[in-house]
């Protein structure tokens, strides 16, 4: 489990060769702590998620998720609130959020959709925004909009328990409980699906639960836990 002792030599590991501009490198310390090595560049992280750092670091709050005035207004309107800070400096910074598990993934020009509360840290070179998700309302009370991350670079997302990555292909569509949904990437369509019919012995309807159905080609990240949802439970 995440009890990690770091030998001092490893603390200032040089950034991997081959990068032209200084790029932050993300690595995991155990399953719940993200270590980011920065060399003068910046990363965007969830507000207040720093637990420790070595070297020199500056923390700056960014209004509206660092998306400028337009992003600020959009986020205010959509309710997809995101408190973000910019971390810039030289050294190693450790991030963690309420003992949740961290997954690091790399984007190569594609787009990741993630619940704002599950986005822990993203490379400074990535763009973030909000998008309309269609019918997936009610998931985690976050509403009809979700946060998107686009570009090339590394992203760290959090989940309650280690995330399970599930592949969706045209042959294998996937249904996910809204409370367990964390993020998805790729070319996916989502729809609302009612899963359970609680017909009783007397033949009355007794409430229904919903799932999100993903079809197309891509990856879906789910967590081994459920937030409370309006959609109901299975």
């Amino acid at each position, binding site marked *: 489990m995440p009890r990690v002792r770091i030998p001092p030599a490893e603390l200032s590991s040089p950034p991997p060769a081959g990068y032209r501009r200084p790029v932050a490198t993300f690595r995991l310390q155990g399953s719940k702590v993200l270590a980011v090595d920065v060399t003068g560049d910046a990363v965007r992280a969830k507000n207040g998620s720093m637990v420790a750092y070595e070297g020199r670091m500056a923390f700056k709050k960014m209004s509206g998720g660092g998306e400028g005035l337009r992003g600020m207004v959009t986020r205010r309107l959509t309710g997809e609130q995101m408190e973000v800070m910019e971390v810039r400096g030289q050294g190693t910074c450790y991030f963690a959020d309420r003992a949740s598990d961290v997954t690091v993934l790399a984007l190569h020009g594609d787009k990741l959709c993630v619940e704002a509360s599950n986005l822990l840290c993203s490379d400074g070179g990535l763009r973030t925004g909000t998008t309309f998700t269609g019918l997936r309302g009610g998931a985690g009370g976050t509403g009809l909009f979700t946060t998107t991350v686009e570009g090339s670079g590394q992203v760290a997302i959090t989940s309650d*328990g280690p995330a399970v990555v599930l592949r969706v292909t045209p042959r294998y569509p996937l249904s996910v*409980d809204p409370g367990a949904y964390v993020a998805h990437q790729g070319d996916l369509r989502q729809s609302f699906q009612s899963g359970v019919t609680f017909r009783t012995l007397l033949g009355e309807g007794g409430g229904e639960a919903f799932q999100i159905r993903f079809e197309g080609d891509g990856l879906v990240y789910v967590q*081994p*836990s459920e937030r*409370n949802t*309006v959609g109901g439970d299975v």
Partner: protein
Amino acid sequence: MNASAVHDPSTLPSDDNVNPYTFCVDLKGSRWFLQKGKMIAYYGDVSFQGVGHGALDRLVRTSFHSPMHAGDWVVAEGSGKMLLADRAFDVNSYDLDEGNLTVRSGNLLAFEPSLSLKQSIVPGFLTLIGTGTFVAASNGPVVFMEPPIRVDPQALVGWADCPSPCHHYDHAYLSGVLGGLRALTGIGGASGEEHQFEFVGAGTVLLQSSEALLPERGTGTVPHEPGVPGGGAPHPGHGSGQGSHGSAPRLPGQLGDLQRRFGL
């Protein structure tokens, strides 16, 4: 760095753990009993029906004997792979062979219909009898201990083959000098350990780290926020295992979740 493995229906295990916190059930036209709120995702053609549903009458008659918990359970049937998880707890499957095991009701995720489910005499616990597989969760890995042992009630996940546990009170503490001194001075306080469940005889006791800080939620509650009908209405925590058995059993015919959601 895509550290986590990507799964699809062909790589997911069959009736085994995906990781310590997620279990995959392989449905091949078979049925599983499933507690509501424990399924996180599925591939394939799976349908879920409430335990009260008429078509399942025969199945329920042979395998499900707990009206108190009927509202919390559904039957999954069809073919596909179904992922189960619970509050990011550790999840384990247990195989019973003509055996019996009693487990905290909130920690039971699913079981095969070849097992029969009954309410334990100890409130908040369910007993599984017969041959088959079931899936249960624990806060941290399960610790298996042999009797004789005294266990903090919150740390108890369940027990197998043991005679029912009895209450053990530390009477030396209750009536002793310390008790009097504490009442007089207010110094010291209770040790918090004057009551345990005691197990004796042959069997196995299953323990977890106590879950004092992770309160069980009643399945089906809606978030407490404006605009959500019935939001935050305290739903009696059925099956919380903390002696909250004052709640009325949800009878077949009641509207259940829908009723609560619209504040009826």
